């Protein structure tokens, strides 16, 4: 009971804090959305004061409400599922923008994170099993190096080499824009083709982490008595490796996996920027730069929800995978 209550409190608090931070931080900064809009408009010459005023009116910048009153209104709107209209993409509703982008982010991110986790864990298991062999001795330091490369740097180099110089893969967009979006083979093929490079970079830069952690937990697990017992029972290699050792070794990584799943939405920003890939991350950066309060707040809310959702899933997964926590679950 208390546990459940605490959990709910935690979810509510987390959402509230992230929503509140995102209400106040941008508003404490100098400038306003109308001024941000000038950036774009002035490309075609000066803008009359009347138009500037109209902009401010449209964005509600010239309001006389106090910040707290605005905050109250904002919370009220949120509760009613009203996210407002984007400033930078005026007059598109925020929800439309997020709807357009989130699919891309989710699919690319989830696929990449899952591939990376699965592959990393598998390699980690094998490396631990073949401890001291060539694979283990040389792959581990190489992976250490790989994990320390700044992501964007790796991505840019891969983009430049495979996307531009060799021209094997497209280096921008989520699909061939001359195609119509829909569930047809041409579109799906094009979407997959476009996702290869971004996914590859995500996998490359995150696989090392999983691999090394998994290797270490696996080595520790291999020295457990139940693994020795499994060997003593004369079970096959595969059964010992996966059902006895890896099955236990993977448990501590679940939390990390959940957090990684949670950061998909927010964490793919660099991918989206480098690969000009559609997604919520790039929108976020634009919203930040354009002081697009409604979009910014809504994106943040979605990110927070995604993170908490992933956390919730991890909770479930943990309960499903580890019989010990089914009995007592501490916060």
């Amino acid at each position: 009971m208390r546990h459940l209550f605490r959990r709910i409190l935690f979810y509510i608090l987390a959402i509230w804090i992230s929503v509140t931070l995102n209400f106040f931080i941008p508003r404490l900064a100098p400038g306003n959305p109308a001024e941000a809009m000038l950036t774009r408009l002035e490309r075609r010459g000066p803008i009359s004061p009347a138009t500037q005023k109209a902009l401010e009116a449209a964005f509600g910048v010239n309001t006389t409400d106090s910040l707290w009153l605005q905050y109250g209104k904002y919370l009220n709107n949120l509760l009613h599922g009203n996210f407002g209209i984007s400033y930078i993409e005026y007059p598109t509703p925020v929800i439309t923008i997020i709807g357009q982008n989130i699919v891309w982010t989710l699919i690319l991110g989830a696929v990449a994170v899952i591939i990376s986790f699965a592959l990393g864990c598998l390699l980690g298991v094998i490396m631990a099993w073949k401890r001291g062999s060539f694979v283990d001795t040389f792959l581990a330091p190489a992976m250490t190096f790989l994990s320390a490369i700044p992501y964007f740097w790796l991505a840019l180099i891969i983009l430049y080499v495979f996307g531009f110089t060799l021209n094997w893969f497209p280096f921008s967009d989520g699909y061939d824009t001359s195609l119509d979006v829909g569930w047809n083979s041409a579109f799906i093929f094009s979407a997959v083709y476009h996702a290869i490079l971004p996914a590859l970079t995500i996998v490359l830069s995150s696989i090392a982490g999983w691999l090394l952690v998994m290797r270490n937990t696996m080595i520790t697990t291999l020295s457990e008595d139940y693994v020795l017992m499994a060997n003593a029972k004369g079970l096959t290699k595969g059964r010992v490796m996966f059902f006895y050792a890896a099955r236990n070794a993977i448990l501590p990584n679940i939390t990390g996996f959940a957090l990684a799943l949670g950061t998909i939405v927010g964490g793919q920003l660099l991918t989206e920027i480098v690969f000009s890939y559609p997604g919520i991350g790039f929108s976020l950066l634009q919203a930040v730069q354009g002081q697009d309060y409604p979009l910014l707040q809504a994106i943040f809310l979605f990110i927070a929800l995604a993170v908490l959702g992933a956390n919730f899933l991890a909770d479930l997964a943990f309960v499903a995978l580890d019989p010990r926590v089914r009995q007592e679950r501490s916060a």
Partner: protein
Amino acid sequence: MSTINQAYDPTGSNRMEEPVLVANHLRKEFPINDFKLFAPRKVVHAVEDATFELYPGQATALVGESGSGKTTVARMLARLYDPTSGEISFRGEPIKLQSHRAAVLRQYRRHVQLIFQDPFASLNPIHDVRYHLSRPLRLFGHAHTEDEVTEQVLALLRRVSLSPAEQFIQKFPHQLSGGQRQRIAIARALAVHPEVLLADEPVSMLDVSIRLDILNLLLRLKKEEQLALLFITHDIASARYFAENTLVMYAGQMVEGGPSEAVIQTPKHPYTQLLLAAAPDPDRIKAQGHGLSEEVHARGEIPSLINPPEGCRFHPRCPHAMPVCKQHFPARTELGNGHWTNCFLYTDQTIQQQTTAPAAQS
């Protein structure tokens, strides 16, 4: 072959002396976390109604199955746990149990020290021997300058036969063997100059030869310092070897007690009998040839302490269980010479002999 000159006499001079520490009807319940919605809060009834005394210069052994609450009793006496109810008196003065004031606790701990069950866990691996021994010296003002500390630490090390002391003083726990660690733990308790030493299974994990070493050390200290000792063990033979008195616990209840020899040679309570029957005893071989004897019949496990059986907690396993055992916990029956037990098997006799109902128990 010399016998130990066990200088006690159950009714004699030592008994006349005032007990230094008295536990009166101690009871401990541990709340357990429970995530069920509307279930009543559950507790572990770890100790029910423990009453006994500790005398200077004497050892009292506390034996019983694992999980029967021995450690809990010791920890309550060391004031690491707050008893749920009951009273602890030190030198005749009751200690206010619910008081959490650090200064008061520290005053109490100056006199009552606990040696922990596990010598491997109770020493901090990152501190050396000097640190472990110097802390109580400094805390209780037995030493002030660095040199005084060193001096007394060396003395303590010699006292527990760790020599050369000047080598041990610099060692870390991982550089010590189990027996050496155990002795450091004892020295640490002694550094406080306590009057009561609560030794919680100080030898259960050790090798036979080290085990004896430590028992002998404690025996010596008991005599030298007039320490009052509570010696917890589940090895009844060690209890016999070491302690003047023995108390037997089962599932949180004290079921039998008295002079060790009496309790061990003429066990009265069915549980004590079971315990003795189960204890490894090579002497049996002589009678039966080899092979395990088949005389232990009390199958079953120690009952759940969350929902303990009503009445005498041993009744589900007791070969002599009577209907009354399910309803009441039997009162203490004195069997003479300080030997007592809580069992209805013996109350009947008492009733017959005295033809009066036993006095109501508090």
